[in-house]
């Protein structure tokens, strides 16, 4: 007798727990519009705004006069754990003072080797490089991921020491 009672009690208990679980799913089924967190990604491209600090790619900031703040000091190159950055610099004579000065020739950035760790950004003494939140950089050719960050003809800003 007892065994039969236990048997049925177990069955009822089982059905009850299953219904409790199904009530949760049922709730979300009937409130399907609530708490939607998924985004329709390629469609919402125009309105999609990443967080300011989001690390997408390293950029060298240029102002409207095509000038940047990179002195070619190579601090970022040293800070980078992956050899992602290569600074090729020249020494040129400053026409005003006559002293030799270092300027960058090429700021080579291998995006394919970058782990977006932000160490280069925090090591730059002149805040010349920044993280940009853009992220759509997939390509068919790995060569496209090696970029030269200083724009052609760009110069160092005058006030940067």
């Amino acid at each position: 007798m007892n065994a039969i009672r236990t048997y049925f009690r177990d069955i009822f208990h089982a059905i009850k727990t299953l219904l409790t679980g199904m009530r949760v799913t049922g709730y979300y089924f009937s409130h399907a519009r609530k708490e939607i967190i998924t985004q329709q990604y390629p469609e919402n491209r125009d309105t999609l705004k990443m967080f300011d600090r989001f690390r997408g790619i390293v950029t060298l900031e240029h102002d409207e006069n095509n000038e940047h703040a990179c002195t070619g000091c190579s601090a970022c190159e040293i800070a980078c754990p992956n050899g992602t950055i290569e600074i090729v610099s020249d020494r040129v004579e400053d026409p005003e003072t006559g002293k030799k000065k270092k300027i960058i020739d090429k700021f080579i950035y291998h995006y394919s080797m970058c782990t977006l760790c932000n160490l280069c950004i925090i090591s730059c003494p002149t805040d010349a490089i920044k993280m940009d939140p853009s992220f759509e950089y997939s390509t068919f050719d790995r060569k496209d991921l090696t970029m030269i960050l200083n724009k052609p003809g760009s110069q160092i800003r005058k006030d940067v020491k």
Partner: protein
Amino acid sequence: MTEEVETKDAIKTQEYFVNMGPQHPSTHGVLRLMLELDGEIIKRVIPHIGYIHRSIEKMSEKDSYRQIVHLTDRMDYLSNHMNNEAVCLLVENALEVEVSDRVKVIRTIMSELTRLSSHQLWWGVMGMDLGALTTFLYAFRDREMINDIFEETCGARLTVNYNVPGGVMFDIHPNFQKRVKDFIKHFKTKLPEYDRLLSDNVIFRQRTEGVGILSKEDAISYGVTGPTGRASGFSNDTRKHKPYSAYDRVEFKEILMDKGDTFSRYKSRILEMWESISIIEQLIDNIPEGEIQSPAVKQVIKLPAGEYYQSVETARGELGVYVVSDGQKSPYRLKFRSPGFSNLFVLDHMVRGYKIADLVAMMSTIDLVIPDIDR
């Protein structure tokens, strides 16, 4: 009648090997398990690792201490903050630098958020391993809020690299406190749902209760830490025993269970989530002011020659970092004691005599992250 019995006896069974993995959805990564089977009964499990070895320890020998931190994100990627913190704490202790209270509290909140997000993911995947797909979606819904918090303050969702030796990389975002509070409020209503959906479910209970029992003695002798060990009654919480950061100023319980079966391991993580919530609640409203990076840590870090060890409690157990320094910019040798490695090798002991489906359930409750094991 007699004939049938004879034929039954005459059937000879043969033991055979089956490879589970390296690509298998319930090994949660590239882990290969060689199963020695008799029918469906498991006789032995031989884990084969090395499919995702990146030699992080060796790479660390050429990197500076600042650079090592970002590699640790890539070990146990679900405990990224704690991994970062382990290296940073080691460097700070070796240099005898005290970080400000603000940094300590931020680090603790971040670690607990990470623990929550890791346990959420584990819960979703655990349900999925046992055939309940919905849990995965619910867990990811809640986890997304934590990822947003990380993305806003740290700049990345998974490989955050937020801790630096001597502090944290940036100050917290102005929205941080509000977002964390919103999340806590939201998650407090959702966590009971987790119980209703899975913990009380009769099918789930029958597949987990009394299965895969790990005794306290075995847990200790295999060095099983984290919720997995605590479910067997092995008190091993680094946060309690060797408090670091702000864990000495918050109140929380170390969740200890005594059964040591699959369900206890499951339940201990659910209860741990409540503890994490309470830790965050205690800290979030009073983040003290202070500098976010200690000026005592120079740009080029050289540890004095010697040996150093630091352990932290990740979502999976005790992560230890052991460094031998010869006074140079990079360590002479660096070794990680990862929790997943010890926890994986208890699987063979646990699973003998059970069926393959039980193995999946046990593996879920051990909560393996393969890059943590392989490094």
